């Protein structure tokens, strides 16, 4: 019975499995919440592809479904219906533990509020994803140091978050996102808590990472931040309103 079901599922999708250039493919993603007895559709059929090395901004006003989409892309949540392939893997059908593994390996989060552990040093914060995939200690420390070096914080590895400026904290978070060499870097309003000067520095860093070949998904509601991306997806009322290419890669 189970094998039949699996086979049926595979037959159904055999034509839609993306080729290896495509890092993200969503196909008719729906997310429905129950508010009391009322159904609320946060996403109403979102489909798009992102290729390796793209730098995409997802824009939309609050309530547009932008955050819901980000949670789905970040494998923090599963869709009510529809398929989501990340790096060739159908993640929309995965359970909690598999999703945790995907978050660990395939996704590097950068949050608006940095989300660093306050009592841990910069080095330990960057080390965390490696701890959860069982990387041996010496390799782990080496990788974390390299990652901090990439964001220009080699001289701050033993500082705690509260000993660092906002920009430096976000750099630590970026170093943490990079450390596992993920398929995508998923940045949720990464400059929301930073002043404009620091914001420019951070966006400059993303540009460098993009040039190095990283795939970046930037979620924001600010036009001038989204303008750093090469492609902008506008979300409105749970649907993709427009898919705009700002410049060639």
């Amino acid at each position, binding site marked *: 019975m189970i094998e039949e079901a699996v086979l049926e599922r595979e037959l159904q999708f055999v034509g839609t499995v993306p080729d290896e250039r495509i890092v993200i493919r969503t196909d008719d993603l729906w997310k429905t919440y129950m508010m009391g007895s009322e159904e609320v559709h946060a996403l109403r059929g979102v489909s798009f592809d992102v290729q390796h090395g793209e730098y995409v901004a997802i824009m939309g006003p609050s309530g547009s479904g932008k955050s819901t989409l980000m*949670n789905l892309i970040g494998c923090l949540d599963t869709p009510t219906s529809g398929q989501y392939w990340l790096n060739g893997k159908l993640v929309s059908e995965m359970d*909690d533990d598999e999703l*945790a593994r995907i978050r660990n390996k395939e996704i590097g*989060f950068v949050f608006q509020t940095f989300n660093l552990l306050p009592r841990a040093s910069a080095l330990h914060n960057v080390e965390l994803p490696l701890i*959860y995939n069982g990387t041996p200690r010496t390799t782990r420390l080496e990788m974390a140091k390299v990652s901090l070096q990439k964001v220009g914080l080699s001289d701050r590895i033993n500082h705690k978050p509260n000993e660092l400026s906002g920009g430096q904290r976000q750099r630590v978070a970026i170093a943490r996102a990079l450390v596992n060499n993920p398929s995508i870097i998923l940045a949720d309003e990464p400059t929301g808590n930073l002043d404009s000067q620091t914001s420019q520095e951070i966006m400059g860093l993303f540009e460098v990472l993009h040039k190095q070949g990283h795939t970046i998904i930037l979620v924001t509601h600010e036009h001038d931040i989204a303008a750093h991306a090469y492609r902008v997806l506008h979300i409105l009322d749970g649907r993709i309103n427009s898919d705009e290419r700002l410049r060639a890669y």
Partner: protein
Amino acid sequence: MHTFFEAAKIAISSILAHKLRSFLTLLGVIIGVFVVISVATVIEGANVYIKEKIATLGSGVFRVQKASLTGFGDFQKFLDALRKNPDLTIDDLYALRAGVTLADQLGAQDGTAQDIRYGNISLESVGVQGVTPDMITLSNLEVAQGRYFIEFDNDNRRDVCFIGSDVAKGLFPSSDPIGQEIRVGRDKFSVIGVATELGTVLGFSQDNFVLLPMNTFLKEYGSRRSLTFVVRAKKGADVERVHDQVRVVLRTRHKLNYNQADDFSIASDEETEQLFGSITKVVAGVAFPVVGTSLLIGGIVIMNIMLATVTERTREIGIRKSLGATRRDILVQFLVESSMLSGFGGLIGMLMAITLMSGVSKIAPVPVAVPLWAPIIAISVSTLVGLFFGIYPANRAAGLDPIVALRAD
């Protein structure tokens, strides 16, 4: 394994970050373990003491007395027996020596208290005992100087004595006691030997004695007294059968009918140990419910504080989950934290108990010995308490939705 070390590190830093809170949380566990270890230390101390100092006869050795507390266990019965039972005499000893074929050795002793004097030094109320020469091998006495009695001393009722180390030091602070004549009661006895030091039992010195040959003792202090016989069974002989032989001899001599009870008492070290064992069982029976209750309360407090910790660190849990921590990772993290917290409490309780009890043993004659199992039990039981009461909070943490957790303040 990596996550386990990570969890241990987190646990230590979180315990250290809230020292006072951790301590208060752990009071129940600390008190519980403290009581267990204190009680266990005293019980073990008593056991070691009985083995080393009181029950010194060794296996296969037993006493035959007119009445003994260990044989009856009941104080009133003991007093009745002491009043009614016939005295055990030196003739009984000879009869036993002839009749108990399974005995390797059969000695007798009895004692009184006398003032003793040498020159102008006198010691009051020193234990004076008459012993048969074979008692040296039936007791834990050893000769430090000179010699013990031989049959010749006993048969000829010689006025010689063998003294304990306290007596030797007391009467002869700077001279050699051997060959000197000391006054015991009315008469003079010459010292032929000194015993090695035995130490104290429950604060009483065991070295304050003067021994006389049995027949000398009976001549001096009268033969109307009841002796204590000490019997060692032959190697390989069933001790019960030796008891039976003793019974047959004494019952025949006392002309008892088959339906009459023994009018004497046979007591071995095993029985002495059993008597103490029954006392320690009562103590343990009182202590362990107290301990159980405090560990239960301690566990509930730990559960409570862990629930608060989970709420406090919801965001941290969200961060960890977003970085790839599985439910299991988070579960392990909080289980390790609650077990380590509780185990740490057990450690504190144990150290407090050991410190206190070793302090007490220095100022009071309470025997103290830390049983080997105590630290292991203390740490493992308290760790298990933490583990058990940590399950619910840890499950809660593990089940948190990462999206909700990340948004928490």
